[in-house]
Structures are given as structure tokens and as C-alpha cells.
């Protein structure tokens, strides 16, 4: 077995004095796709944010390491440059800053961190055009302000497009499926699937099983009360779909 890419052990996190994660364990190895499911308020988004380094969360216990490094000690941009990508549930609008400009800055920041030279303009343009095509995005999107005036679906598609360009090692997608119609969901899933590889891992945070019809996870975890209470394979998601969270929670409690 290869060593884990991400190892979360006994993680406890509080927001404003209230404990949201209460001792969470999660191990993600290279190439794996993990789905984290759970009812509203179970701590799914908190986990995604803490792994990406969002301020405002207080880690009160436990640890998280990424490639053997203490993840929690790293600044958000260090994590990003080390290959962690967070697909936001609510992507942020940055007026006046073009999508393509943000991406180029982001890409070059990673390359600089790895001691590589800046990408040349032609190569970059080729890259973003390819990936835009993959996400079935019109090229005019590239020049528009980051998420500025995008519809909900466009914003989510733009997140996956950014992921495709940045080629992360660990992608954490926070409710990327929410608010998408079935066609958009397929495009997003297709984008994710095309990026699956032996080196790249995914953590899909989702409320519904629907996304997992299109992206087949290796593991499904049920998060409730700030901890993972059950882990299984794809069939666990189907079980949840059929019986609802209540049944699984009740079973876990007994």
C-alpha cells in the first residue's frame, strides 16, 4: 500500500466556540475518490474549508497531514501551491479581474513554488482553450470577471474548469453538484472523470447520491455530528438514497 496523501486523525474544529467537527478521521490515498455525505449541518463544509485553510475555524484537537507535512500549519496559498484545490460551494465574485488573469496568476504562483519558469503566453492560451472546450464553456467566459454575473451553474462549471487548468493533486469539491440541472451535472462529472488518474485524489462533499451516479467513488463516508460514523463503498450511497439519513443514523446509534 502506498502512503496516504491526506491523513486526518481525530480532528476537532470549533466555530465561534461551538464544536462542529468532533474527532474526524479520514485517510485518502493517491488515485482514490472519496465521497463524504451527510445531512445538513453535519460539518461537511467545515471539513472542506478547514482542509483548504479558511480563517475563522478553530482547530481544537487532532491533526491533518498532507504528503506527510502538517497541513494545518500551512497558509491557504501554500496548500494550493502544494496541489490542494477547493471547489467552492458558493464561488466568489471578483469584479474587474478576468477569469483568465486569475488562472494565469494562480498557475504561475504554483510553478514558481516548484521552481519552474512562468508559462509562456501561447502555451497558456492553448491550455485554457483545451480545458474550456472540455467543460463546454464558451471562450468569452475566459475574459469575463471571475464569476461576475455568472449563473449558479456557470459558477460551478467555472470551478471545475479552474481545477482542470490547475491540475491539483487533491481536489476537494464542496457541494459542486448543488444547484445544477442534469445537463450541467453531466458536464461537471465528465470534467472530474477526465481528470481522474493514479496520482490524483478527490474528496467529493455532497448531500445527494445523484452525483455519484456519474462519478463513481471508491469510498463513501457518512458524516454526522462532526464525525465519520460509517464508511463503505458505492452501495452505501444507494442505501442512503433509499432509506434516508435517519435510518443510517439510527443504525449507527444502536
Amino acid at each position: 500500500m502506498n502512503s496516504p496523501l491526506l491523513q486526518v486523525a481525530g480532528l476537532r474544529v470549533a466555530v465561534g466556540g461551538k464544536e462542529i467537527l468532533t474527532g474526524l478521521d479520514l485517510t485518502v490515498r493517491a488515485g482514490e475518490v472519496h465521497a463524504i455525505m451527510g445531512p445538513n449541518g453535519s460539518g461537511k463544509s467545515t471539513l472542506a474549508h478547514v482542509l483548504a485553510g479558511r480563517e475563522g475555524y478553530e482547530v481544537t484537537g487532532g491533526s491533518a497531514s498532507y504528503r506527510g507535512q502538517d497541513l494545518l500549519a500551512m497558509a491557504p496559498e501554500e496548500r494550493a501551491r502544494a496541489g490542494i484545490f477547493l471547489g467552492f460551494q458558493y464561488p466568489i465574485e471578483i469584479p474587474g479581474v478576468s477569469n483568465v488573469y486569475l488562472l494565469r496568476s494562480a498557475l504561475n504562483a504554483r510553478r514558481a513554488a516548484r521552481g519552474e519558469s512562468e508559462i509562456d503566453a501561447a502555451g497558456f492560451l492553448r491550455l485554457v482553450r483545451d480545458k474550456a472546450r472540455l467543460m463546454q464553456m464558451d471562450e468569452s467566459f475566459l475574459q469575463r470577471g471571475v464569476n461576475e454575473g455568472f449563473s449558479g451553474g456557470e459558477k460551478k462549471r467555472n470551478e471545475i474548469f479552474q481545477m482542470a487548468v490547475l491540475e491539483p493533486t487533491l481536489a476537494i469539491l464542496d457541494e459542486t453538484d448543488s444547484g445544477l440541472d442534469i445537463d450541467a451535472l453531466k458536464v461537471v462529472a465528465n470534467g472530474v472523470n477526465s481528470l481522474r488518474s493514479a496520482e490524483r485524489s478527490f474528496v467529493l462533499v455532497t448531500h445527494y447520491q445523484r452525483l455519484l451516479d456519474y462519478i463513481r467513488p471508491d469510498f463513501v463516508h457518512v458524516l454526522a455530528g462532526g464525525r465519520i460514523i460509517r464508511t463503505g463503498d458505492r452501495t452505501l450511497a444507494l442505501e442512503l438514497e433509499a432509506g434516508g439519513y435517519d435510518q443510517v443514523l439510527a443504525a449507527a446509534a444502536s
Partner: protein
Amino acid sequence: MTSTTENPALEDLIGRRYAHGFVTDIESDTVPPGLSEDTIRFISAKKGEPEFLLEWRLKAYRHWLTLREPRWAKVHHPPIDYQAISYYSAPKAPQGPRSIDEVDPKLLETYEKLGIPLHERARLAGVAVDAVFDSVSVTTTFKDRLSAVGVIFCSFSEAVREHPELVRKYLGTVVPYRDNYFAALNSAVFTDGSFVYIPQGVRCPMELSTYFRINQAKTGQFERTLIIAEEASHVSYLEGCTAPQREENQLHAAVVELVALRDATIKYSTVQNWYPGDEEGRGGIYNFVTKRGDCRGANSRISWTQVEAGSAITWKYPSCILRGENSVGEFYSVAVTNNLQQADTGTKMIHIGRNTRSTIVSKGISAGRAQNAYRGLVKILPTAENARNYTQCDSLLMGARCGAHTFPYMEVRNPTAVVEHEATTSRIGDDQLFYCRQRGLSTEDAVNLIVNGFCKQVFRELPMEFAVEAQNLLNVSLEGAVG
């Protein structure tokens, strides 16, 4: 949690060092401080002016004596001693600038250091420069090429000598000497500036620009610029300004008058980077400027774009009088204040003609202990059928001790007019910063990027050479940016 106020990168950005603070050691003719009718006669005689101009100056001076300094702007400063200022200072040189070869090499070097090489071969093709050093114009480039198409681009003094009929016809017709305190003062003591005349039907073949430099201590700079665009002509004009780093405040009280006749377009851009004073608010330029454009003819258009980064105090309201039918006025502004800088700036759009339109986009960025105010007037007169105005006014605050203020005045007297104003004030969103950092950008780069995005609507109105300078002023590199 990283608060924007404690952010070293941010402080770096807003605490940029003033790069143009050096002094040129050059022998100058400087009159002793003091202001009287004799001072004005001296200036007028020095310039060999016709009688009408001296009379006009004296009338302005006598009127100025009856006025009091305006107090309504949201700026504070100790009283200005107008008798302690020298009203004329010029580098010693043979009478008047002639060609580039006659200009003192020290001056050429000065402009070289400021990034404005005056040798035509070294210049960016397509930009003609009038270089004004303290009270006089040093040289004007590309004059021959411009005169070939009938464009007059020269110093104001030269225009008075060579084209007195044009000066007499237009001087003071947009900004009369009675207009306000500083306009009256300028009318009395102005020393030089630029003059532009674009003949009928001519599209000026290159960008025109004036570079203003204050060098001498204890002097004021009082330049006057007059741009006349005849029917169906077009001109784009840029100005830049810098001054040495000094502990005393220096006064800059300029007047700019623009006249656009039927179907003419004037685009006027400014990157103002006068010395802003140090972090304790010592020194810096008092920039009290009256700029106004008169859209006299139908379908004329005047567009002001300004990036105000320097000066201890900025007090200026580049305005448009929309007299001609279908005429258009625009004002795009970025004003950045840091430390103890104060800016009270905005515009006036006076709609007189039918179907006149105006657009105002103002972006204020305030940091340190600075105060940054937008003040604008949109006035729709009863004659302005179907007039339209749209104003967007946004302020960005960086730090808990600065201020951002918005004072829009809208006076509407025509029931077919539509006037709309929107304003927002906030700091850089934590969520925006995090989003950029999650994509791998440092906080510094993220702030630069967000601030640049905030100003984009204004920057894209600037001619290319100035857009780059403006963005550099915000310490943001767009080198190699795609798109």
C-alpha cells in the same frame, strides 16, 4: 485570522515609496516670495505679453483679493501664506525654449529619470510631449510633425506670442477668472502650461502630453492649459505630474479649459503623482485645480480620466458643460489616498442641451489615516430634454483609521431626464482574499489583483502608456497578462 490592517503585503502595497522625490540642481531665475500687482506685471513682462493679457491678470487679481478660500471641501490644512510663495521660477536659459539641443542637459536628465525622455528618437512613437519645469515650458517635442497637419501644440507662453488671437478668443471662456478662489489666483499669476489647437476635421495623429514638474522650493506652480478642438476634430491629451520630496507644502493651482466644437472629441487623461508628503503628513503638494470642458457644439464629447495618486491634498472636479445637443461628458476616476493624504475630488456635469448624456465612474481607495471624498454634481437644466446621467461611485477602505466619503448632488429640472446614482463602500472581502489564496496567490498578489479589478473600469479608459503607469502606481504588475 489575517486582517487587512495587519497585513504586511497590503501595507507594502499602499505604503509604496515615492520614486520621484529627487531635486534637480539647476540655476534658476526665481522671484522673491510675495504677491502684488508688481509681481503680476513682472510675470507678464517676463513673458512679453500683450496688454490685454496683463489687464486680464490684474482684473483677476483684484477680484481674488475680494474672495475667501473655499471651506466646503472635506479637507483640512493650515492657512496658506500667499505672500510666502514665489510666483515665478525658471531654469536659467537663453530666452525661451527653442529646440531640444538648446535645453540644459540637466533638465533632459531630469525628465529621463522621470521616464519621459525628451529626445524624439528615444520617445515612444506616437506621443508628443510638452515638458513644464516649475514656471516655464522647457521644450515641446514633435512640433513639426504636428504642424504639418495644422495642429498647434506648444507652451502657453508661446501661444500667447504666436497665436494671440486664439488665446484672446478662448482664454477664460470656460473657466472665467471669477469662477472660484484658486481659478482667480491662477488667472492672475499663471506662468505657463500647454496650448493645443486642433483644426477642423483633423484627427490628431499622435497622443499629446504635458509633463509637469515642480522643482524649486517655496514656489507654487500655476499652469494654465487650453485645448481647442474645432469642428469634427479629435484629440487625446495626457498629463503627468511629479515633485521633489520636501517637508514644506507647495501649492499647485492649475486651470485647464477645454473647448469642443461641433462633432469634436477631447479625451483628457491625468496621472497625478505629485509628492504626497511623508507618513506623518509632512510636506506634499496642495493640488487645487480647476478643470472644465465645454461641449459647445452638437455631438461633441469630452472625456476626463484621472488617476489621482499623489498630493497631500487634492481638490479638483474636472467638469463638463454639456451645451451642444447630443453632447457627451464622461468622468472616470481612481483616487488613492494613504497616510495623511486628503482628496476631495469628483466632477460636475451640467446638462443644458437636448439629449445630452453623462457617465461618472469613480473609484476611491483609502488607506492609512487618509480621507478620500467623492463630490459630484449632476445638474439637469429645464432645456436638457431627455438628458441622461449614470453615476457609479465605489470606495474601498484599507485599515480602520481611514475614511471614505461620498457627496453626490443631483439637481433635476427636466421631467424627461433620467439621473441614476449608485454608491458602495466596503473593504476587500475576506472571502475574495481567501478565494484567491486558495488558487495559490499570495495575499499581496491577491490584494493587487482585487484592487486592480476594482479600478479596471477606469484603467481601461486610459491610453496604453498611461494605463501601465497607472497600474504600476498601484504596484501591480500586469506583465504578460493575457487578454
